[in-house]
């Protein structure tokens, strides 16, 4: 195994749930409706149901997440995406 792959693995391994959450937060924040405060974002808040994010924008959130984490979501992943925690679970699975 080359050193480059090793170091990449290390970075991915080193990403804690907190790290992922911190990277995810600004992505989701950009799609909040104007009348929803960013402090309302909690790990288990429903993105469309509670945070009122337009369901069409889930697609954009996924694209931004794919760019940020260098992963690709399958259609099934998108179906299971409801909350921040869901996103973290999916991302963890992809980078593991």
């Amino acid at each position, binding site marked *: 195994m080359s050193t480059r792959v090793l170091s990449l693995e290390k970075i991915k391994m080193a990403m804690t749930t907190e790290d992922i959450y911190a990277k995810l937060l600004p992505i989701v924040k950009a799609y909040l409706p*104007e009348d929803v405060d960013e402090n309302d974002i909690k790990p288990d808040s429903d993105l469309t149901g509670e945070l009122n994010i*337009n369901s069409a924008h889930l697609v*954009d959130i996924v*694209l931004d997440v794919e760019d940020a984490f260098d992963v690709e979501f399958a259609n099934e992943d998108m179906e299971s995406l409801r909350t921040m925690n869901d996103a973290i679970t999916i991302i963890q699975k992809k980078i593991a």
Partner: protein
Amino acid sequence: MSTRVVITGLGVVAPNGVGIAEFTEAIKNGKSGIRFFPELKDLNFSCHIGGIPIISEEKKREYFTELQLRNFNSNGILYGVMAGMDALNDAGIQAAKKDEDALYDFGIIFGAGTSSPEKFRESIHKIDAGNTRRLGSNSVLQVMASGVSAYLGGMIGAGNMVTTNSSACATGTEAIILGYERIASGKAKQMLCGSTSDDGPYIWGGFDAIRVMNYKSNANPKNASRPMSASAAGFVPGSGAGALLLESLESAQERGAKIYAEVLGGSINSGGQRNEGSMTAANHTAVQNCIKNALADANIQASEIDYINGHLTATTKDSVEIQNWCEALNRKGKDFPYINSLKGLTGHCLTASGSIEVVATILQLQNNFIFPNINCDDLDTRITNMISSEKIPQKKIEVPLKTVVKASFGFGDVNACVIFRKN
């Protein structure tokens, strides 16, 4: 008797002025919005000039949220929203609050020729590369023909008819007549009517290919668009949007709204691409019928017309349009109304031309002036053989105006003519 319809709000995004104040100054002073675009030259266009409104990033944010501007790539929707929201504000009408009912008596007819070709291009590249999944959420919203009316509908909370009409260069004038008819028939109380046009190579390329754009004045952009001139050599492409808030007289009076003018009547028809008519040329009888039918609909005599805002695109066919006006109104020489064309200042704003030019028409009617028809120091003698040259002001003149007419003609042999009166 049908409901009377008045204009209570105006909005405009034009190559020579953005917003009513700037646009009014521009037309009074004969300011041109035609510029050289190196991009057109680099793409081997024959015509390298055009009219594109100048809009800063800050200005965009007065109308759109950061979220709305994410992956937004549509000048047509940008111009349409700006003009439409300006007309709404000018009329003093509030958008519905988010958790309130929609405005069920408020509708939108906002025309477009095509929507967001730049966004479409972006999508096409992704699709062809097998990356359809990466198009994002707003490709459809921008590329659908009704994108502009859908954006406006959501921002305002319009609950009546919300649609986009399309009839080439007659689109803007047609939108106003359709909105007028909807209010007159009692189906709506307020209608935001207008039209928008995207710009750039993907809109203008087809016109360049058929050599109807002026390719002889690339070095002199401001002198290139020459309506009614002997040296008219084709139109100069333009873009932008114009918007009018139409309202029943009763509704306007109840609100104590400022009233610019009344829409007295209008007419829309087609020449069926018969006789002289074709996909690209007008059937003269149909044009004249359209004008005569508008007079009849408005219930006025041709002698009452003080001013004509012509279609007059600055091609060699301008004289044919003048002939049609002369025959339809049965007026000529010194008896002919004042006439001018905005296209000398803005270029031909295509689907937006009708609405931008109606805004210019109403501003002249309101303020009793006629803007200079620039670049026609060498008037076409075929035109001056029919009407007196003093009826084509080359400098701004101040003159009382009461009843004015605007007509637009489009590819597909379609016509629209509307009459306004200041009471």
